[in-house]
């Protein structure tokens, strides 16, 4: 009955295989992942992944919540880049409601989304360094993740689970301090990233540990529905920002880095280059913002955008809309919509079916970590245990997104 603790059929007493429970709380896996591995010496013979340790039934909860209360659920999917999830959800609802967003809001969103992509990639790449023994790089670049969180804090008040923005835009405009911090980040981060690359990219030990390890062909990657940096490292130039632009990404000039062999080294290089491209996008967005009318931070959709509190108390229309939004008396079209954004780990999709009620009839998250991770056990076969560890780090599996 208990499939979670698989009994291997090979009970030959002469067999030298060792069963190793890697996880669920192994410090090297950076999250709650269990893999029951059969080892022949240091080589993995077979593995079984068990997931679901932090399954919180978000899809079920979402069926009982109005749209604006679902944003905090999306925070807790990929909590390393929660603003992307938040805005992906907002854009799904906006697509459902056919809301036209002002350009300024799109650009502000792009800034935040690219910052969180950088934060996500910082975590992944520094941890590859950490797991191959280069603690310096980890400590060195990680402080910039802190600077990104300070920017988020300035914009929305929160750091990790941001709940940033609202359906229809942002809850408030970016203040001057936020822009100062963004500009400071744009100035300081390239220096640190360059230094990070100097430490790792041509490092003999690092290359020996990562190059040629866990190679994946593009056919296999597509067969297993991989997306994001993992797919791009195999040489497929699929990026939702380009193939299906959202939030005015078509206005920006940036490149999609691709690898060739899909090994860990390529994944590292792709993520690094994506950070440079994200910086480029943010710089362009800052310039574009200057030509947009100041002070616009949400679309003009009073039926769906919660009015500021002082207006609720002083203005009849605002009071009415506030009441209707909170009590769920606003009709949304009966329709189904699929919207995808490029999350830190790949295509993050929201499949929303609305039956006209207060809550979604069905909401499904296409979670890249979940879909990418299913290849981990099959691809570990024949690999050294220590290589499997860095393979897992380089896949950047986030437990919250894996288990939803």
């Amino acid at each position, binding site marked *: 009955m208990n499939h979670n603790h698989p009994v291997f059929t090979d009970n030959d007493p002469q067999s030298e295989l060792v069963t190793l429970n890697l996880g669920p709380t192994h410090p090297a896996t950076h999250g709650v992942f269990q893999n029951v591995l059969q080892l022949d010496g240091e080589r993995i013979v077979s593995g079984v992944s068990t*997931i679901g340790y932090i399954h919180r039934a978000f899809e079920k909860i979402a069926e009982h919540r109005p749209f604006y209360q679902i944003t905090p659920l999306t925070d807790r999917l990929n909590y390393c880049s929660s603003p992307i999830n938040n805005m992906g959800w907002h854009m799904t609802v906006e697509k459902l409601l056919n809301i036209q967003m002002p350009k300024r809001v799109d650009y502000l969103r792009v800034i935040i989304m690219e910052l969180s992509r950088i934060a996500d990639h910082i975590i992944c790449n520094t941890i590859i360094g950490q797991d191959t023994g280069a603690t310096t790089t980890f400590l060195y670049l990680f402080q910039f993740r802190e600077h990104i969180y300070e920017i988020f804090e300035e914009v929305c008040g929160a750091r990790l689970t941001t709940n940033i923005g609202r359906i229809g835009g942002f809850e408030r405009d970016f203040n001057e301090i936020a822009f100062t911090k963004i500009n400071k980040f744009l100035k300081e981060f390239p220096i640190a990233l360059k230094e990070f690359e100097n430490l790792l990219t041509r490092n003999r030990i690092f290359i020996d540990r990562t190059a040629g390890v866990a190679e994946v062909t593009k056919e296999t990657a597509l067969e297993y529905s991989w997306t994001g940096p993992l797919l791009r490292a195999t040489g497929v130039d699929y990026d939702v920002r380009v193939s299906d632009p959202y939030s005015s990404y078509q206005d920006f000039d940036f490149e999609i880095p691709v690898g060739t062999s899909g090994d860990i080294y390529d994944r590292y290089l792709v993520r690094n280059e994506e950070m440079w491209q994200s910086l480029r996008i943010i710089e362009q967005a800052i310039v574009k913002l200057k030509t947009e009318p100041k002070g616009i931070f949400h679309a003009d959709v009073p039926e769906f955008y919660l009015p500021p509190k002082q207006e609720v108390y002083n203005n009849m229309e605002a009071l009415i809309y506030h009441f209707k939004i909170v009590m769920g008396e606003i009709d949304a079209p009966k329709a*189904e*919509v699929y919207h995808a954004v490029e999350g830190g780990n790949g295509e993050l999709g929201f499949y929303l079916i609305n039956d006209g009620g207060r809550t979604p009839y069905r909401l499904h998250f296409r979670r890249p970590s979940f*879909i990418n*991770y299913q290849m981990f056990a099959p691809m570990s076969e024949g690999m050294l245990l220590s290589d499997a560890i860095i393979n897992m780090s380089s896949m950047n599996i986030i437990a919250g997104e894996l288990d939803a």
Partner: protein
Amino acid sequence: MEETTLNNTIHIKLTEKFGEKVTAISEPYGLLTFVAYKDVIVNVLSHLKEELKFNFLTDITAVHYPGKDHGIAVVYHLHNMVEKVRVRIKVFISEQNPTIPTATTVWKGANWMERETYDLFGVKFEGHPDLRRILNMDDLGVHPMLKQYPLEDPNRVDKKDEFFGR
């Protein structure tokens, strides 16, 4: 505009091949959606993959419509990365006997998506190599995303829907 022509071509090619077995074609928000019969679904998927270049399986999930004849819809999202077009296929199956052929023969990546759908909705994918629960514990006994299972303890008095306009 371009997308609509593409969708039309796909529509024509599908009806040529499968005739009555592929119906109810619509385009909500530009995404071509159609309903296929259970007995042809694997053929439809592999035809889309091999002939119409929908090389990428984005997602498999299900939706529960209680009280209907065929109360569970299994939903496939496919993606043609070259022509940048997506398509959605729905298969309605009966709630009492929710079986459907597996798509793992077409895409290996369907494995976990189908396990998740089985776990949450109880859809049995026939021919699946390893169909067991994935997110929930093995002895849960129910498939929790079905609409008959309430989210919270129904005996609570402070969370009645009527207080919230639901």
